């Protein structure tokens, strides 16, 4: 009896230990973690993606577990930790995922309108009297600025690159108040008048407008960025090749007509993509990130130059490091 009890205890301890020591292997064997960022309400994001992920699970023959993170960093940490194997994120997050979390760009979304990217926007209330960026900077001292997550490409990196860095300004120092929200909260904040100006992007504006048509009427775009490369789909570089292949096969096929694809199925796939404001996915690699990577480095460089508190030696050292990285970047492929 005692021996049995002891054995049971040992077994339980072993079990706990094994489950603790090698969770990834245990989970990844029949499960695929899919990370998403709540650019709008998490439920809405899940709703948008769930059909695709269901299809993916069916096609791959394993459980696709979607995890929706409140912020972009969560995706990176989760991928780094092995909690998720695949994530659909912005360019900036993709850079971090590649650099820190062992990620690898595998696909890029094809926009619903067929473009290769989307735009970052500055939103203001239609009746605010702000029509241009110049208007905004002229009245910056009295405005509340709705910034995006610092790892958001359209919400933070692109406006920083195009609007603040060239002027040598920081949103924190220019505006009366700066808050960080996701894209939909920024949109709703502007509409409700809580925010005077906020960042956003064309994709989210479209989905938010669809969800909140009344609010959309109160919001107008005062600045539109140049085209941003589309959001990439990143997987862990150490994902099993079979699984990578299966995933690639699934995604590149999804929403495309194929010889052995039933039309109903195609229609359903295209409907799912439309719900996601996408047209489908294309294969690509880490070079997809180059433009944003360069942009981010330049932005960092200008911020270092503008940081008066930084000791000169440190500044030079950092600048030299950035310059070195910049020079090392290969030219963008397209």
């Amino acid at each position, binding site marked *: 009896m005692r021996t049995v009890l002891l054995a049971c205890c040992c077994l339980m301890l072993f079990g706990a230990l094994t489950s603790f020591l090698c969770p990834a292997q245990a989970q990844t064997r029949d499960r695929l973690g899919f990370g998403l960022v709540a650019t709008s309400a998490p439920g809405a994001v899940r709703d948008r993606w769930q059909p695709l992920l269901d299809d993916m699970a069916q096609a791959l023959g394993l459980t696709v577990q979607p*995890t929706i*993170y*409140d*912020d*972009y*960093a*969560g995706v*990176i*940490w*989760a991928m*780094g*930790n092995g*909690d998720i194997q695949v994530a659909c994120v912005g360019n900036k997050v993709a850079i*971090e995922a590649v650099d*820190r979390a062992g990620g690898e760009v595998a696909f890029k979304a094809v926009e619903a309108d067929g473009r290769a990217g989307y735009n970052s926007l500055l939103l203001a209330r239609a009746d605010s009297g702000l029509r241009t960026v110049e208007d905004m900077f002229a009245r910056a001292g009295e405005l509340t600025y709705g910034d995006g*997550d*610092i*790892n958001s490409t359209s919400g933070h990196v692109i406006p920083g690159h195009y609007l603040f860095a060239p002027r040598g300004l920081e949103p924190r120092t220019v505006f009366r108040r700066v808050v960080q929200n996701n894209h939909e909260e920024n949109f709703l904040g502007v509409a409700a008048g809580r925010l005077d100006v906020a960042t956003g992007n064309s994709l989210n504006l479209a989905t938010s407008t669809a969800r909140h048509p009344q609010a959309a009427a109160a919001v107008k775009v005062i600045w539109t960025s140049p085209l941003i490369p589309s959001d990439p789909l990143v997987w862990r570089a150490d994902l099993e090749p079979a699984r990578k292949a299966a995933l690639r096969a699934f995604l590149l096929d999804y929403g495309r007509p194929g010889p052995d694809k039933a039309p109903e199925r195609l229609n359903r796939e295209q409907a799912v993509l439309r719900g996601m404001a996408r047209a489908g996915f294309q294969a690509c690699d880490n070079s997809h990130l180059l433009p944003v990577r360069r942009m981010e480095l330049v932005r*960092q460089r200008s*911020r270092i130059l503008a*940081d008066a*508190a*930084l000791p000169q030696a440190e500044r030079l050292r950092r600048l030299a490091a950035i310059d070195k990285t910049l020079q090392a970047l290969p030219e963008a492929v397209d």
Partner: protein
Amino acid sequence: MRSFCGFLGQAVGRSRQGLAAKLLLPALSLSLGVGLLLFLFFSEKFARQAEEDLRNRLDSFLSTQAAELEGPVWEFDQAAIDRLFRSYALMPDLQRVRLTDSQGATLALAGADPSPSDRTFAASRRLTRQAGSETYNLGRLEVVFNDSRIRQGLAASRKAELPAALGLAVLFAGVLVVTVHWHLGVPLRRLRESLERNAAAGLRSPLPWQSRDELGQVVDAYNAMLAEVNQYTGSLELANAELQAENLQRRLAETRLTLFKTMVEATDTAMVITDRELRVQETNAACLRLTGFAAEELAGRPVWETFLFPHDRDRMAAVQRCLEANAAWAGEWRGLTSQGARLPLRVTINALHFSGDAAAHHVLVFTDISEQKATQKLLKSLAYSDSLTGLPNRALFMDRLEREICIETRRGRGFALLFVDLDNFKWINDSMSHAVGDRVLAALAGRMRQCLRAEDTLARMGGDEFTVILRETGDAVVVERVVAALLARMAEPLEVDGATLEIGASIGAALYPNDGAASETLMKNADTAMYAAKAAGGSRLRFFEPAIAQKAQARLNLRNKLKRAIARREFVLHFQPIVAMATGAHVHYEALVRWNRPKALVQPAQFIEFAENEGLINHIGRQVFDMAFAQLRDWAGEGVPATMAVNVSRSQFLEEDFVEDLLARATRHGVAPSRMVLEITESLLITDSAAAKVVLARLIASGFRIAVDDFGVGYSSLSVLVEYPVQIVKLDKSLIRPLECDPRARAMVSGFIALFQSLGLEVVAEGVETAVQHEFLAAAGCNLGQGWLYGKPMPATPALAAASAMESRLVVSRLRDKDRPVAQ
């Protein structure tokens, strides 16, 4: 502070014995040790506290910064991380802070590696974040603090606290020292001093004490002991003091006995102590000295057989009886010396009683009263004799006179009473001296004594008056003979002090019983007769006659009348003009006094001399001056410029306050002294030259002018006029009268006039009665004239009225002079 140190030093210096020091040394060292230990304990405690604080701060810093950094690390926000790390540079105590990621790579670093001397406190914390269902290890934050700052703070506070602690220790020590000093040292010292004080003999005074502590109880016990000791010593001392007082009294008694003995031996009074039967037992030195006996000769013998002469048995018995009855006797007794001489003794005998016993002894006290007896005799003679001359005095003389009257009333033979008064004796006294006068009196008394019989009485009545009783001499002829001899003897030249004097005497005689039966009458009549003799020129005898008495009475009457006249101011002034000879103008008036009696106007010749002799002239003189000044004032009011001449008598002039009185009168009447000429006689200047000179000088200095009157009758001394500062000379009428007939007189007068004028004196001719005299005088250059020719004395108003008439008369006489040549 210095005194405190001094006390501390003192306390330590006395440490070998001092109770205070014994208490203080352990207390002080204990307090110092405890203070040091406490200081060390607390400083250690503070150090640990600070360390604890540092650890707490490290923990809280770590917590807050971990929370702070979690977001940026999560979001890979290197800029925010850098920003935070840069802010850590300001953090005190921070040595190093490092942020590493989950792989251990350094994300951020601030501070430096600790130096080996610093103690460091390190802590680290894992940064985690929950996302989805997972918790992510974001990295690790390591923080190292060093304690250099708190060590510096501790060192600084120690630096401040150590002196404070030391100060406190010193203060505590000081308070302790002072407390011990005041509550132990001082009271013990007081107690010790009291003990030392009370160790000496004498009254032991208790120690006053306030505190009721143990020392107070000790002092109470001590005081109680003192009280007891005082009680014992008090009774002892009392007995001792009584003994000493007794001793003192005995010594005093002995001293007194010795003193009495010495006194008895030293006194001049003879003393003898006898037994009841007056047998000598003790004698003193004075007794032996007085009686001449030796003490052995007297001892045991009755006084009657030794120094008291037993001449009267009855008195001796009376003395014995008196002693038995009264225990005392006093009286005079004839004494006897060892040589047999007798002396009068004043003897007092007293019985001596000792403490109520019957008298066993007598004390005889006796003195030699022979000197007293002699003095008594002398006094008796002095009472009846004149000390200067040794003659009987008035009292004895009157007694003798009464006795003589009694005798002669019975026998009927009669006697003569002479009254002798020396002539000019007053002059001798005044001009020479009283000593000379006294010698003259003594010498003359001797001469008179020689001329009289022994049975006659010569007495001095006083002054220069002597009286004589010529016994049994009733015959005037005999009296005349005796008096002649007397006068002759007295008139003999007398040498006194090198001067030869001839002194006469006026003698009046009255005969008993013809010239009076009573002594007073006889004396008065003899005096009257003497006065008559003096009036007749002196150096002669006058017998009393009724006529003389009448004359004397008349004089008395006149005197009384004059006195009344002075009191009633019965005198008036008449004025005789003195004219300038050249012009005939009235220059002066001589004021002449008249006695305005009810029936007639009395001329001065009839009373002035009498008044002078009677001493009344000064009263009259003052009235005359008053009247003269009043007249001058009236004239001044009427515009009459004349001055006035007033005669001054000798006694008036020599009166003590003459000048002051005169000036006071002049001032009272408001008359300038220069308007008055004082006329004095030449004799005055000669007889009283010294006094007169002084008075003259003062009068002239006061402004009066002085005229010498009646020049030419007396001495006619020219030297007087030169010597004295007189301004006017009046030639006497005896010089003027013979001018008409005597050529020598004319020569003399013209000579005088020329002489005086050359001396600068004004010359007044008196008694000018005829034109011839006037002409001669005018021709001789005489300035002024006075006389009937110009005007008789008359009252003021007629005198002024006559002035103009007088001038016209002179004009007539001048006109006549033109026809005739001036008489030679």
